[in-house]
């Protein structure tokens, strides 16, 4: 009797716990009426370099439009799960009011269905002047612009000037034959020349190198060529060489992002490749390397173009289509606010990121010197091409790492490497 009494109490308590505060708690958000609420599942939170600037700008916006529009940041602390949650929400028919995405061929699927707000008219009515024409053209499909370019990236080759001097190398090599000579000199003083990786979601560092190589071989229109074109095999041969003869560390095969950056920061390697978001990391964790880091374009292949850079739109803003005109208006108002020159400039200075909307630094701005070098690298480039991952479908990009494993371990020839990428297309 006593036991069943305890059990009944337990059930009642459980029922109370379960139905009371648990349900009530999250539902308050619908309370305020009239005011349009925009939910923004956002990755720029926590320790992210843009987090505090973005939070401040949203707070200012909410203060300015108090009683009319309220933007609520839903903190999404995992970049990996972010894409999957957005996809699950879209599949379930509830596209977030504001969200960010990457620009890849797969983004076309989003344009083809009526799930995003179309900004074409708003941009034509003046907002478009905030952006470079070329950038907007890139995100316009069938004369519709349904995403707003926000963060752009340039991923030059980084090198450690001090280590180069120690090895007796004068300046960064301009061609691959010179590059291999320089690599030999670095190895002679016990330094592994380059940081590479085949792991992670898309073999990031090495994928960027391959993009540099392909830019030199194929020129500005390299990605318009099909994978069956022999130039892709030619590029793979150079990539293979980067993985041979101790030109990179042994753990590059299978290594995630921590491997190439860790080696570069610890001065075990002298050459690295990444975007401006890495500035904060190197400045904090290896100030001595930060001071001697120079940026450059990759060497040219024999007979290829020189001075190219790899650059692309890193993040776009988008808004879920809605039947409510007030909500659509609110979303456009907010996105316009986000792309105001002063707001963009603030995010750029605080985070080191390069942003798509136009703005100019003034003499008083405390711009990071390395960030300035990025801007220069972008200006000095003879031409800029996208990275590989931005031009091929996710299936092909996913295959890049595994195919590179085989290439690097000698289990696949450069032809077979490219064949694996082609097969993944199906």
């Amino acid at each position: 009797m006593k036991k069943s009494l305890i059990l009944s109490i337990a059930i009642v308590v459980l029922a109370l716990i379960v139905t009371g505060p648990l349900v009530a708690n999250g539902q308050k958000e619908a309370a305020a009426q009239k005011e349009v609420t925009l939910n923004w599942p956002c990755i720029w939170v926590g320790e992210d370099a843009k987090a505090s600037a973005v939070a401040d700008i949203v707070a200012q916006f909410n203060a300015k439009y108090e009683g009319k529009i309220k933007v609520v940041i839903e903190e999404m602390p995992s970049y990996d799960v972010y894409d999957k949650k957005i996809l699950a929400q879209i599949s379930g028919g509830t596209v977030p009011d504001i969200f960010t995405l990457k620009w890849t061929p797969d983004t076309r699927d989003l344009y083809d269905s009526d799930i995003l707000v179309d900004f074409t008219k708003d941009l034509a009515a003046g907002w478009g002047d905030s952006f470079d024409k070329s950038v907007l053209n890139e995100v316009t499909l069938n004369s519709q612009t349904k995403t707003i370019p926000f963060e752009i990236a340039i991923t030059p080759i980084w090198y450690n000037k001090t280590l180069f001097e120690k090895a007796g190398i004068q300046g960064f090599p301009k061609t691959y034959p010179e590059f291999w000579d320089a690599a030999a000199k670095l190895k002679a003083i016990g330094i592994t020349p380059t940081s590479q990786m085949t792991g992670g979601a898309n073999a990031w560092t090495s994928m960027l190198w391959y993009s540099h190589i392909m830019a030199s071989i194929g020129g500005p229109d390299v990605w318009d060529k099909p994978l069956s074109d022999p130039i892709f095999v030619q590029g793979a041969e150079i990539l293979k060489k980067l993985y041979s003869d101790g030109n990179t560390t042994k753990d590059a095969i299978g290594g995630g992002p921590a491997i190439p950056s860790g080696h570069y920061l610890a001065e075990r390697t002298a050459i690295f490749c990444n975007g401006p978001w890495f500035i904060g990391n190197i400045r904090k964790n290896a100030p001595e390397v930060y001071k001697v880091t120079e940026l450059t374009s990759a060497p040219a292949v024999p007979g290829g173009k020189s001075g190219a850079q790899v650059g692309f739109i890193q993040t776009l803003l988008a808004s879920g289509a809605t039947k409510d005109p007030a909500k659509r208006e609110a979303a456009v108002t907010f996105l316009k606010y986000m792309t105001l020159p002063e707001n963009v400039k603030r995010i750029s200075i605080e985070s080191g990121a390069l942003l798509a909307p136009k703005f100019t630094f003034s003499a008083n701005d405390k711009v990071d010197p390395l960030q300035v070098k990025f801007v220069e690298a972008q200006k000095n480039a003879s031409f800029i091409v996208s990275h590989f991952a931005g031009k091929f479908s996710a299936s092909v990009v996913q295959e890049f790492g595994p195919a590179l494993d085989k290439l690097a371990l000698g289990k696949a020839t450069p032809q077979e490497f490219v064949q694996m990428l082609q097969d993944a297309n199906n």
Partner: protein
Amino acid sequence: MNRNLWKSTIRVLKWVFLLFFFAVALLPLLWLLVTSFKTEAEFTKFPLQLPHLWQIQNYIDAVHIAKMHILFINSIIIASSATIFNLLITSMAAFAISREEFRLKNSISNILVAGVLVPIVAFMVPYLALIKNLGLYNTRMALVITYAAINIPISFFLIRSFMTSIPKELEEAAIMDGCSFPQRYTKIILPLSRAGLVTSGTLTFIWAWNEFIYALLLTSSSRVRTIQLGISFFSTQFRSNYPAMYAAIVLTMIPSILVYVFFHDKIISGLTAGAVKG
């Protein structure tokens, strides 16, 4: 003489075995602790070395950045409610299935257990739809019910196997005494299968405590979120501050270890005495 040699060989082997697994199990804990006192720079450059200077900044960051206290309370409420809820429904079902004869019981049992295999990541789309349709999106209840449900197969499986091993005679005596169906459940079977209950309860609690993907999928505000999401704040799009993350992990492990040591261990240790009576 020979027998003594044999005995001491066994003894040595036993300790080699115990200590090997002890060392392997202790390694991650040491790694976590040591790393949590390093700076990010030291960790990035030399992951396996001891810190140059032991510093507690990471712990300060962990509490500060991740807003740990709210998330901590949420985690406790969610993990324990899910565990109680899960144990209640699985033990009721396991009781009916292990102690009664009826048609379909083996099929029901097999279907329930097969749930162990389901790759839970495949269910993101349907779970989100389900929780939204139930009106539970962004509530603690969403996680309680999801965690309780996801652990049905394991708990049912374990509890059923413990209940099956209870001798039939015990129950028959109780039926003679006029015990009703629910009384047999509460008075006889539940107490006798408490080893199974605490084992699956411990596993469910720890699973719920560590769960990450659904916590992120089914909630959107930190008011209802769990501690694991706090930990992930240290890992951003382009950079992960592992020492600070490890400090947060060390702090969040404590409740799980306490649950294991005080809840599971105490009850299991008490079993020998209980079993003699049975």
